[in-house]
């Protein structure tokens, strides 16, 4: 890891550097960029988490650079990576584990990440920052953060989070279930927004612990036919849609568009699994915590790549602590935000509204 950081320092000396302190999940995460190319890609999604000032030692320091904009190449790989079979699930480079590191290499864009959880150090490199696609930019460092936080008892979770006055709900489920549309409609209706795709869950410890969701990425993703229903923020998606593939979701960076509406997090009082019914009305149907876990955990864990047992344990604890519902989404979209707002206002614990 020392050699990798040394390469970053060469790049930083060559083109200058930028240090950005963030607060993620209550921890101090410092991003150090060599040059501007990587920062331009990685920062927009997390701009709402920038700390007012750097204070104290960082819990996690991430060094980022690309070769194209800095002229500084990565050292030769110390682990075998060039033949089939040595990069497994989650793009993990198996050989790095022997050095106590978690390394990944993405074949599609060439993004290398190396993480030392215990030391709180990560290195991120690729040949050309242009290789960071729109989906990576919308959720930067997700896999690395999932590993880091899982070792500290928090779960990077595939879900959306909407709140009001310090309390809120987590919406889980596979892609296309309605998480993004629901959460953006709630944002339009004035509720606090902590994310529509990936958030950080702290299920707490001890009998009196209250589960908490922390925002990670202030982005919003919607299909084109949803944008017309969001007059306040819908225009943000017009520019974003220009870079979207046909049929793909447009991505807007809400941390700069509506910063006052982006929440850094709140207490979770309910877990919802949305589903589109085709009926007019929106309703909430109580479900068991096991059912909720089955809806929330698989898409989270299969995307995170590893740390499944740790993550599943955190999500199971969450599901056992809060009321769980199937959110049956109706075609009358005006009902959705009020239904969630009533739930937040009335929920006080597991089964409170059942």
């Amino acid at each position, binding site marked *: 890891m020392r050699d990798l950081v040394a390469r970053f320092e060469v790049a930083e000396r060559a083109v200058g550097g930028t240090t950005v302190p963030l607060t993620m999940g209550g921890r101090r995460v410092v991003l150090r960029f060599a040059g501007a190319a990587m920062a331009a890609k990685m920062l927009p999604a997390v701009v709402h988490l920038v700390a007012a000032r750097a204070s104290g030692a960082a819990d996690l320091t991430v060094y980022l650079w690309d070769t194209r904009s800095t002229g500084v190449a990565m050292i030769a790989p110390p682990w075998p990576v060039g033949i089939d079979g040595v990069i497994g699930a989650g793009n993990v480079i198996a050989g790095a584990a022997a050095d106590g590191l978690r390394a990944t290499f993405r074949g599609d864009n060439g993004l290398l990440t190396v993480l030392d959880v215990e030391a709180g150090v990560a290195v991120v490199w690729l040949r050309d920052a242009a290789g960071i696609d729109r989906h990576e930019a919308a959720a930067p460092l997700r896999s690395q953060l999932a590993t880091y936080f899982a070792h500290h008892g928090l779960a990077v979770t595939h879900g959306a989070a909407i709140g009001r006055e310090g309390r809120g709900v987590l919406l889980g489920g596979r892609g296309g279930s309605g998480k993004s549309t629901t959460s953006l409609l709630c944002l339009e209706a004035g509720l606090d927004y902590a994310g529509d795709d990936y958030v950080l869950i702290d299920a707490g410890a001890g009998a009196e612990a209250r589960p908490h969701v922390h925002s990670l990425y202030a982005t919003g993703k919607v299909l084109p036919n949803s944008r017309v229903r969001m007059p306040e923020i819908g225009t943000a998606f017009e520019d974003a849609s220009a870079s979207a593939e046909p049929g793909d979701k447009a991505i807007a960076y809400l941390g700069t568009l509506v910063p006052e509406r982006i929440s850094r997090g709140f207490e979770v009082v309910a877990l919802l699994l949305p589903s589109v019914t085709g009926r007019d009305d929106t309703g909430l149907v109580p479900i068991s915590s096991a059912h909720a876990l089955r809806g929330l*955990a698989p898409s989270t864990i299969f995307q995170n790549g590893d740390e499944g*047992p740790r993550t599943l344990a955190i999500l199971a604890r969450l599901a*056992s602590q809060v009321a769980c519902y199937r959110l049956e989404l109706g075609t009358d979209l005006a009902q959705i935000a009020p239904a969630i707002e009533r739930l937040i206002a009335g929920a006080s614990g597991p089964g409170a509204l059942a």
Partner: protein
Amino acid sequence: MRYRIPPVRIAHETLDGEVVILDQESGTYFSLAGAGADIWGQFAASATVDEVNAFCEATFEDADAAGMRASVRGLCDELLAERLIEAVGSPSGLLPEAVGSPSGLLPEAVDAAPALTNAASAAATAGTKRAWVAPQLERFTDLQTLLLLDPIHDVDESGWPRTAP
């Protein structure tokens, strides 16, 4: 023969009498409820099929003991076929070194099985037997595409793989 849950590859948690099981290699996930969740807990504690049968006979009401045993054997075979349990001592089932373990990461020690038998005996003695319903393993494959790998073949002069065109 004793069984156990493969560490790391399989994640599992039990809530409300239902166990949720994730195979992180295949992207398949499973659910077992009722007696199935109890039986899963027995295998997770390195029980043998005979010990699971004894546990079930002590825990559940059922006039058809032979049918119950057939169900246990059938579930065991299904869990083996899905690679959700493995024989202790099998090539892939060597016990790992002790590490800090979150809930469900590692099986209980092999000698935990007798304690489970005692627990079942206590349930029988207390007259709290539950109704037996043959377990059903529910299998979900809708998220397997999330695990599609991106095979890497060639490296460039730096030693790092070429990216996809």
